């Protein structure tokens, strides 16, 4: 009886906990084990058995039996510690309570391990109807607008609503300077200013815009904007930052595409899949250099490969789509309707890529290049042998010395007969013997007598001279793929190589399409998967809601200082909303309807009355809209470092305006960069005229930026740059005040003025006209003449001052 009673009591005590193991197992299976258990064990954590939970993963034990508050499993789920688990989802209060009670009561499972959750379910993230309605995912619809200039119409609606008065039209001298700096990145010459100011025809302005768009320097200026977006550089970054001597062909391709007004959809298709879509076009091959522009790690493993792919997905998404798809590498996007799966479907598009330096000559010419190289090498061999013989006695001396100064552990190891050495001693000896004869050049040279040094130098020089006679084969930085079949890529839970989920098929952003975008199988004779071809068709499709908006918004930003969406690479919820949504949509539809013509959009924007407004403030407007969000005046914009340097060269009359070709390396003070055996800057002399090219052609070395550009907020070239920083700092002043290059240009400018104008007042007038596109006022002229005449270096210093004043470095 007593016994029976006790048993009943025990049962009663257990009763509230009954079913807990089953319920806990359900919570775990539904929320945890798809990533932590079964085929996938993120952080090496398996949550299917109690033992495995106690053992834990790379972050330590997940379970402390009997103590929920100390168990990571519970703490992450309850939000007591970061990261929140499961990612992006909070457990219900009931499920949490179940987990807590279960752990606190001993965490027993009812015999069987917890079931593995479904991978597919964990990877799926459906897009809701409501999410599809987000403005940027809706295809732009052309709003009604009057025929004259829709831009002015849409801006005027806002001015009216906000009580703002638009600024009056700027003076013609201001307009011409604005147009030149904006479209060419160079100031107009006094003759060019005069020609426009004196042109009284009613269409003088649109004629000017047309003539500038026809200038080959237009492509140079606007290529710079595109190159910022695609983080272009002439070197590979990371530790070695190797030069990419063929990258410039891609840069020249961009210049040419802009100058020829290549339809923008075609421009994008060539860059993404030129090899697949236009195999006969050498230009399209060069365009695929886009896929190679990112930094390249010299360490090659699965993780670095994934990082490179990430860089490409992120740049494509931010740059072309204005979507922060990169956020979905490790989890579904927290704010936007971007599934983690979308990230891996986009990654699958690029996954097969392999680099290829593609010869730009026919096979016969290629064979000739190779034969010529071999012939030179044959000539080098006897000299190399001679060098070896010359060095031998000195190398031997160093080796002998090294052997005499071994540390004890090594001496012991070497003294031990080979058969009796321990495993480690064997390894130590191998290390020593392999290295003892390996001598660095510096160490060797220290050992040589002066006579031998001289003799050696001659031989080394001979070899180097022969190197220079080796022919260079023209090649483009392009890509290829291993074959028609793409190698498998996977969904990666938490983004790491160690957490592979399902095999991925290529795809596009789900929120922008009703049905999966078709990725047809590659043609039977294809050498690549043709995934990029299908992806490029989606990017450049008139139905793509993002691409046209993103590009016209960037153009707007470069013309008007800020975008209609002020976060030009983020049209998502965390970005800014468009200030003028109808205008943005009108521009996007107009762009597509006009065969994606970039020049058409330039004309529209620049021929608007808005573009021709003065930049002056008015007190009343400022009170209502201090940030000029409603664009009631033209913003004044500081020139980029490139345009400042180019303008200085233009004023000095030293600008070499050759278009295209390999990059140039102007002088950089060696104190400002750190050379290494793999990385250096072979800059020319500071006064070498061959480096007086436009800054677009300055070699863009990721680890060694040109200080003049760097100090003025040159982008980092590592990630896509949506909008340049515009900081104002003392080192900018120091460089324009004191830098030798700037002083040399001031001197050249002074010589030019002396040549071109006979008297001091005439030189002052010419200086003002060249620098600012206007004559000096009487007061300015008198002050400058006095300044010049007061010192022998007066004219130099006057010219130098023109480079430094605000009026010179701002677009009016």
């Amino acid at each position, binding site marked *: 009886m007593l016994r029976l009673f006790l048993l009943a009591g025990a049962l009663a005590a257990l009763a509230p906990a009954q079913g807990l193991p089953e319920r806990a197992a359900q919570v775990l299976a539904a929320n945890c084990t798809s990533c932590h258990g079964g085929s996938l064990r993120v952080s090496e954590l398996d949550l299917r058995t109690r033992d495995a939970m106690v053992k834990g993963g790379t972050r330590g034990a997940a379970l402390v039996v009997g103590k929920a508050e100390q168990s990571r499993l519970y703490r992450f789920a309850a939000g007591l510690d970061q990261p929140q688990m499961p990612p992006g989802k909070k457990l219900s209060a009931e499920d949490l309570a179940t987990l807590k009670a279960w752990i606190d009561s001993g965490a027993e499972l009812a015999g069987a391990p917890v079931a593995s959750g479904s991978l597919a379910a964990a990877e799926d993230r459906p897009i809701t109807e409501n999410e599809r309605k987000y403005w940027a995912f809706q295809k732009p619809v052309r709003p009604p607008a009057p025929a004259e200039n829709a831009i002015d119409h849409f801006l005027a609606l806002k001015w009216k609503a906000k009580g703002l008065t638009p600024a009056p039209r700027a003076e013609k001298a201001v307009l011409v300077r604005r147009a030149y700096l904006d479209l060419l990145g160079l100031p107009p010459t006094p003759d060019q200013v005069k020609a426009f100011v004196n042109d009284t025809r009613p269409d003088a302005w649109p004629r000017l815009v047309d003539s500038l768009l026809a200038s080959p320097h237009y492509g140079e200026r606007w290529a710079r904007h595109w190159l910022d977006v695609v983080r272009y550089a002439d070197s590979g970054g990371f530790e070695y930052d190797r030069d990419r001597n063929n990258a410039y062909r891609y840069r020249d391709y961009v210049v040419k595409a802009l100058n020829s007004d290549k339809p923008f959809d075609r421009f994008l298709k060539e860059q993404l899949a030129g090899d697949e879509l236009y195999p006969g076009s050498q230009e399209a091959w060069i365009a695929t250099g886009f896929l190679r522009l990112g930094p390249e790690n010299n360490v090659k493993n699965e993780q670095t490969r994934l990082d490179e792919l990430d860089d490409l997905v992120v740049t494509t998404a931010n740059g072309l789509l204005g979507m922060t798809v990169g956020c979905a590498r490790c989890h579904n996007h927290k704010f936007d309707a971007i599934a983690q799966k979308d990230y891996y479907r986009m990654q699958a598009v690029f996954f097969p890529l392999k680099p290829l330096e593609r010869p730009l000559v026919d096979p016969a010419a290629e064979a000739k290049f190779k034969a010529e190289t071999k012939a030179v090498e044959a000539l080098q061999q006897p000299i190399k042998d001679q060098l070896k013989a010359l060095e031998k006695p000195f190398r031997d001396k160093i080796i002998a010395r090294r052997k005499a100064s071994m540390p004890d552990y090594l001496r*012991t190891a070497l003294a031990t007969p080979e058969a009796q050495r321990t495993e480690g001693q064997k390894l130590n000896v191998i290390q020593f013997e392999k*290295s003892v004869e390996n001598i660095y050049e510096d160490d060797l040279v220290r050992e040589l007598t002066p006579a031998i040094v001289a003799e050696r130098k001659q031989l080394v020089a001979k070899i180097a001279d022969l190197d220079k006679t080796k022919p260079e084969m023209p090649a483009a930085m392009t890509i290829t793929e291993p074959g028609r079949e793409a190698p498998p890529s996977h969904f990666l839970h938490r983004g790491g190589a160690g957490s592979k989920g399902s095999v991925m098929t290529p795809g596009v952003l789900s929120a922008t399409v009703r049905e999966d975008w078709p990725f047809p199988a590659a043609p039977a004779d294809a050498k690549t998967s043709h995934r990029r071809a299908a992806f490029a068709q989606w990017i450049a499709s008139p139905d793509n809601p993002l691409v046209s908006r993103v590009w016209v918004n960037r153009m707007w930003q470069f013309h008007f200082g800020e975008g209609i969406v002020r976060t030009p690479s983020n049209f998502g919820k965390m970005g800014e909303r468009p200030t003028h949504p109808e205008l943005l949509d009108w521009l996007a539809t107009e762009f597509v309807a006009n065969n994606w013509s970039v020049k058409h959009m330039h004309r529209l924007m620049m021929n608007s009355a808005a573009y021709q407004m003065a930049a002056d403030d008015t007190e009343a407007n400022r009170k209502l809209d201090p940030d000029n969000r409603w664009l009631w005046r033209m913003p004044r914009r500081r020139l980029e470092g490139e345009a400042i340097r180019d303008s200085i060269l233009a004023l000095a009359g030293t600008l070499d305006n050759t278009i295209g070709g390999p990059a140039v390396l102007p002088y950089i003070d060696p104190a400002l960069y750190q050379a290494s055996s793999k990385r250096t800057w072979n800059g020319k002399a500071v006064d070498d005229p061959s480096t007086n090219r436009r800054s677009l052609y300055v070699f863009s070395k990721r680890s060694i930026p040109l200080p003049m550009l760097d100090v003025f907020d040159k982008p980092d070239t590592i*990630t896509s740059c949506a909008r340049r920083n515009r900081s104002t700092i003392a080192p900018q002043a120091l460089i324009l*005040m004191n830098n030798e290059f700037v002083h040399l240009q001031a001197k050249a400018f002074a010589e030019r003025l002396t040549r071109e104008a006979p008297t001091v007042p005439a030189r002052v007038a010419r200086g003002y006209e060249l620098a600012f596109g206007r004559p000096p006022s009487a007061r300015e002229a008198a002050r400058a003449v006095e300044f010049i005449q007061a010192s022998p270096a007066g004219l130099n210093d006057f010219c130098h001052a023109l480079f430094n004043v605000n009026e010179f470095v701002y677009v009016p």
Partner: protein
Amino acid sequence: MAAGGGIPGLALANMLAPKQPHFPAKAKSVISIFCYGGVSHMDTFDPKPMLKQRAGETIPGKKVVPSQGNPGGLMPALWEFKKYGQSGMEVSSLFPHVAQKVDEIAFIRSMYCTSNDHGPALFQMNTGFIQAGYPSMGSWLTYGLGSENQNLPGFVVFTDPRGGPIGGAPNWGNGFMPAAYQGTPFRPTGNPIVDLRPPKDMTDARQRRWLDFVAKMNQDHIERNPFDTELSARIESYELAYRMQTSATEAVDVDSETAATKKLYGIDEQRTEYFGRQALMARRLVERGVRFVQLYSGGGNFGDSWDAHWDLKENHDQHCGETDKPIAGLMTDLKSRGLLDSTLIIWHGEFGRLPISQRMSGRDHNPYGFTVWMAGGGIRGGTCVGATDEFGLEAVEDRKSVHDLHATMLHLLGFDHTRLTYPHNGRNMRLTDVEGEVIRKIVA
């Protein structure tokens, strides 16, 4: 973080104006001593007697993967260790002067990083990311705290005269932040900043007259645009640049120091002269309100850095010999001036070295375990956190990542590392990415 640096176009004065951190903190500035190339922890601050016992053996059940070539066998420490101070911390004979300071130092013997390559590991130590292009520690601090001295850069870097670290300028780059937060490299001799001084024929009187002329032209221009603060900031930047010409030169004028001070830093001895000068310049800069000073020991290639692949004995004798006395001197000097409390010193490399031999008697890179130490500004001296295994191969106890180190540094300067953010391409970026925990044990 409400700092205004996220707004492009913001004027200099606002970007570098002194700002308050999240909470009050002792440390106001940081001196990072970067032993570039990688210091052998087993031969300096992390004694492993087991290596002596098991010299010429292999680690049972462990496959050691060197950065290059095949592994050697275990190699003992080539220097003897002794206990120092009240804390009884063990230091090898490589650092006799620093050893006298152990009671003021907190050692982290369980550091690890994620790259076995100098470049990425350097970037990680400096920016938290293995890739170039992210803002460096100094940028984050000047972004967060501004600068106390508007006549000097807020973030100054001295590289080794034999050459700079691999990877170059991105090591002190501002990444996606405005250029105002970039590290300014100072040259150890002559004019500290490139383009600081005008060409020789430009006398001060001539330059002053020139500046006044520029100012007048700018004045006319701004009268037509009276509300544009960017234009006025740019005018101001010229006066600042002019003042910087004098103040930067004065700030590094080591010769104005007493003979005793110079001796303290080892400037009177050839071997310690260069690093002694830089350490003394670091003190002078911190004294003048510079927020972050980074000193590189080791540069260029191979033997010129701490990268002792060939001959550890020769390499570490040289580099420790060059830096030991200046580092201890810096600590003594800062303390006697009451600056040690407000200055955080971080001594570190980009990784450690392996317990096995390489080549003749060198050691290869070790990202799996190494030692970093901190002193001054809010640090609990005489402490030690974490441990590597018995051979010094891997951090096993209380493992600390580079993010943890950065989180701790920011904490000591008054910042919650999760709240010091900068918006970039749609994300609020952090020095510590999405990780990092403050190492509480070493915080006083």
